[in-house]
């Protein structure tokens, strides 16, 4: 049987040359993402801003959005958004945070239920009060930073500090671009988005670590090889793995995206962008080339003996 070879065996692609293009592009995109975050904003879900979310299914099999919009608009609940959600009969209703504390949120649900009556089935009701939403947001943000910090400390112990720093730059780059993506698409930003961001972080690092592992191995083995060549060889020899792994992960994600339903749609869409597009790109074009600028291997040829001694001491 002829086996599939996505990447030819002796690939010698000059990835390092691309750093002159990839770095400016990444910098530009990052700035753009930050700009988007501040001027276009994220579509914060009720988890983080509070409010009410009601998913209904019309019993008749077809929801009349226009009528529902007028009915609910006349309730005096402020901003009420309606959105077709999945099938024809399914409608997602979002009611903005009501002024007047926790009780007022409950009253809003009651009003909507009375207005829509028995014509619909209530599939999901979520009410998040102002205090809880604030806590969830701060906890999510803290979690993200704690995760980055913990992973960095681990990398610092396992590798040299330059690697940890390189991984951190790559990390932040991933997170920033993904947030930019969420801003452009206006995907719901809720608790599961934090989960998605953390998973993207994990995957991207996973990738970066695989290449770093190889770079470290090469550094020990080939002491005279110029740094650029060494990085190129490392990336090329792990390229096949990177691509095969990403194909399999994308296949899993694709299945979730197509069949997983609306409830996890924003989660998988974000993952698809973060893991497949950004994560792979970052480990190859950012995390590895940046090691040159961080001074990995500087003075290696001259100090070959010491490196050798250290490598021996380690094994």
């Amino acid at each position, binding site marked *: 049987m002829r086996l599939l070879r996505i990447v030819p065996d002796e690939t010698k692609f000059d990835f390092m040359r691309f750093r002159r293009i990839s770095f400016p592009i990444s910098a530009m995109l990052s700035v753009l993402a930050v700009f988007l975050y501040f001027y276009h904003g994220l579509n914060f879900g009720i988890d983080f801003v509070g409010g009410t979310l009601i998913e209904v299914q019309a019993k008749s099999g077809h929801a009349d959005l226009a009528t529902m919009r007028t009915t609910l608009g006349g309730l005096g609940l402020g901003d009420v958004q309606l959105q077709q959600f999945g099938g024809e009969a399914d409608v997602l209703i979002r009611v903005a945070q009501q002024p007047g504390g926790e009780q007022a949120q409950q009253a809003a649900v009651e009003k909507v239920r009375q207005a829509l009556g028995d014509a619909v089935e209530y599939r999901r009701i979520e*009410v998040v009060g102002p205090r809880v939403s604030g806590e969830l947001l701060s906890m999510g943000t803290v979690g993200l930073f704690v995760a980055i910090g913990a992973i960095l400390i681990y990398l610092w112990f396992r590798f040299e500090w330059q690697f940890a720093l390189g991984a951190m730059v790559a990390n932040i780059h991933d997170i920033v671009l993904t947030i930019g993506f969420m801003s452009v698409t206006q995907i719901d930003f809720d608790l599961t988005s934090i989960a998605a961001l*953390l998973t993207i972080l994990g995957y991207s690092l996973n990738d970066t670590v695989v290449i770093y592992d190889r770079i470290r191995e090469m550094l020990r083995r080939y002491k005279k090889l110029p740094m650029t060549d060494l990085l190129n060889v490392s990336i090329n020899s792990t390229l096949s793995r990177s691509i095969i792994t990403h194909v*399999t992960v994308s296949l899993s994600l694709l299945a979730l995206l197509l069949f997983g*339903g609306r409830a996890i749609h924003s989660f998988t869409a974000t993952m698809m962008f973060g893991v497949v597009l950004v994560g792979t790109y970052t480990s190859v074009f950012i995390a590895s080339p940046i090691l040159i600028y961080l001074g990995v291997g500087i003075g290696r040829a001259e100090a070959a003996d010491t490196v050798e001694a250290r490598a021996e001491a380690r094994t």
Partner: protein
Amino acid sequence: MLYFTRWKALGIVATALIVCLLAVPNFFPTETVKNWPVWAQRHLVLGLDLQGGSHILLEVDTNDVRKQRLDAVLDDVRRTLRDAKVGYSGLVKRNDGVEVRIRENFDFGQALSKLRDLSQPLGGVLAGGGQRTLEVTGDSGSRLVRLTVTEPARIERVRQVVEQAIPIIEKRINALGLVEPTIQRQGIDRILVQVPGLGDPQRLLDLLKNTAKLEFRLVDVSMTAQDAVASRPPADSEVLYENHGGQKTPVLVQKQVLVSGDELTDAQAGFDQRTSEPIVSFKFNSAGARKFAQVTQENVGRPFAIILDSGGEGGPEVISAPVIREPILGGSGQISGNFTVETANNLAILLRSGALPAKLTPVEQRVVGAGLGQDSIDKGKLASYAGGALVVLFMFATYGLFGLFANLAVAINVAMIFGILSLLNATLTLPGIAGIVLTVGIAVDSNVLIYERIREEVRHGRSAIAAIDAGFSRALATILDSNITTFIAAAVLFFIGTGPVRGFAVTLGIGIITTLFTAFTLTRLIVATWVRWVRPKTVPI
């Protein structure tokens, strides 16, 4: 790398098998599993997003707790000064404390020391630390004594309220006939209630947030209620409202409580024998019955009011204000007050389970209908099968026989995840299913790392067996490093996340552990066995 002693091989296979077997109870109906030995009953629990149900986070209203505490301090001060025969003026609540002005200079010292005695050491004798319930300060010049409720005392009180509320909530939910509710404290002042599969979430919420303080008081007949509304009610009376099908009529009632709901032993919904209206009948305990008998004896011919404080915004409400026709000596009676069958039932449940010690406010509520839950399960299953099939095909196309090995390892991996989740009685949520699907990706990656390394070693001219051996030993270090980083992310998610996110973190974390296990032992064992049988000259990848 490719040599296993017989015992080691046996140990690996046995471990994998046992962990996989732990998942077995999930494939049998709950009824069947119940007859199995207890140790074999552990199984996955479906999250509320999958089976439908209510998740309600209640918060103790700290303002209400403070108000109650200050009222109690005010009463204590009044009683203490009266018992000591000390004249005072201007006894008021101010901010977090109570202030009182002692009338005469010569009383001040005695009054201050008596009031100081009101402050108790916090948490009994054992707690130590010198913290007290009240901070008492006096100014001899203005003869003003100030009693402030200390912060630790306030927190302690909130903690007690939560503790008292939990069994009451439990009783109310059980009375609704709901199975397997989870009720737990969260933080200092919150209670998380999770109830799977509920028909009417609104009714549950109504029952949970109702403080249900029942009081029997006399109606003040010294003036009409209308006059009291127009002018001012007498000092020890207040105007409350009775709700007649949306129409509110004022009732002037005395502030003094004759008998309260604490003294009820039972309450049942039923029908009035004459009018066949829904009613709630109740029974007092002996102390309550005695009080009730005495009060009704002394006040025959006068109306009394049955008052319920639901903790809503309208304050206490008069349910009914009947006239006492004859003394009620048996300690039981009935309330009729424009009930429907459901409201009568609700009131009976509330009275039976007792009053909440303070107001509870729902701060977060998530309800998923059973229909949506089933949809999510179906979609999750479909996505898992589709994702699995795609990955299996791709691996086979890429690595042939070794791809099949990998698929076998991944299948065992997934079975082990279910086994461990069952052992932990873990909750499976929709994001949890996503976590499993992603684990498949990670598990496949570990195989890809190994195989790619073997391919490389082959290219470098090693013999088949040497290449396989080197491939494993080099790749495993990388697998460990890369998985630990993902594991850290999962661990952080677990600790900061709630509900669904936590479900995702659990499956992802367990998935990483089983992936490491299979990569380091099982995959190696499979390949090693194959090498021993076939003695290959070339590696077929």
